[in-house]
């Protein structure tokens, strides 16, 4: 998503290149909760886990729906909170992996 070229796109999700226009269009298409918007647009699904874009998204959605930001349910938080290198989960003794 977010692939359309505009003259002055305002990117609100830097990890996944989602613009305000993408968000507004998706809301008009009927995606009116954070969980659905997140899945439709990949907003908040990047390596920063939505640190900057989810609060912005909450405010845009609240404005569009005429609600207060604290009335918008936040998305599920899934572990880990920050991306973790997989080698930390691998035993160094694992045959075939060691010394690669």
């Amino acid at each position: 998503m977010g692939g359309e070229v505009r003259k002055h796109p305002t990117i609100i999700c830097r990890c996944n290149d989602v613009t305000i226009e993408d968000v507004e269009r998706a809301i008009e298409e009927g995606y009116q909760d954070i969980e659905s918007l997140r899945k439709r647009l990949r907003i908040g699904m990047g390596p920063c886990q939505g640190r900057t874009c989810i609060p912005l998204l909450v405010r845009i959605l609240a404005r569009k729906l005429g609600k207060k930001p604290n009335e918008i349910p936040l998305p599920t938080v899934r572990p880990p909170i920050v991306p973790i290198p997989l080698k930390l989960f691998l035993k160094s003794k694992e045959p075939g992996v060691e010394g690669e």
Partner: protein
Amino acid sequence: MRADVLIIGAGISGLSIAYTLTKRGVKDIVVVDAEYVGSGSTSRCATGIRASFTSEEHVVLMKHSVELWRELSKPEELGRYGLAFDQGGYVWTASKDESVELFRRLVTLQNSLGVPTRIVDPDKLKGLVPTMKVDEAKAALYDPTAGKSYVFDTLNAYLMACRRKGVKIMEFTSVRKLVASGGRVKAAVTERGEIEADTFIVAAGGGSKELMESIGIEVPLKNLPRHVMITEAFKPVFSPLVIDWDAGGAPFIVQTKEGNFIIGREIAEEPEKSLKSVRIDFIPTAIAPIAKWFPWLKYVRVMRYWMGYYVTSPDHHPIYGPVEEYENVYLACGYSGHGYMLAPVTGKLIAEWVLDGRPSIPQAERLTLRRIREGKLIEELAIVG
């Protein structure tokens, strides 16, 4: 409220059924979901699509489904990319001689049913899956007709097409129970009032069992937690979904269209356990066998980990179609981990049951609740992704 057809569940099954019914001329369709569209197993799945199974029922139905995935991914009524099927294939690796023997038997069965699987040697495997370390592989079973799709694009394509055709989708509306009298289901009682309909379709995934219990029908489904993780995104590395047949718990890896790797493996679990009961031990268990094939994975970071239910029937085949007690209710559930790939054919079959009284694919008739009541279970060996 009233509808000609009420579909309970807006996962990929419910949407595919709604879409197929509109194509066959049904006008007044309502789809209700307790949460948002796709919130059940659908948006948690690994999106693998294949016909390389081991039972005739699965192979035949999946083959139809794969054809429909292709058909519905042309730029037609489902938008520019349609269902967005990416036919990148599946490879099952074998590191034991007896598995290669089994693969040979499977290839014979699958080929006889028109699925062009074949055995490939490690060199060929390396060509199919660049960057794979194939030293331990004896051979692989390759299914060139299999593939994947991007779940949110696929759901969106179905959803937009349903809306355009006038299907009413009611999200955040949970059905508490069904009400029946005189051999017919009359209404669905929701938290926002009753919905009456001529025909009811229960495509409610893990909620189907309870809904049917409310009208006295036992559908023996178990909700089995499954775990998956996703890594950061990279450039396209390989297209097939890769499964390790011999590692136990069938570990797999697949790269999404966005570049992330989805990795999963079966771990011992209890049915009905909460989807919030995180098992961090899943991550090392799933990674260990996959990192043998792809040593570079150790430099990759895991972004998220989640759980979803395999809504499982006693013989790991779907439960489709009518039930004897009621003339106007149809089931579409119990896919045991394969409901995503089945969705297009699910839509076709259920629409045929509703409109023509029977499905056009004879193998589907063996998949009603009756087989379970009569104890005629079907065997399947390849239950994974």
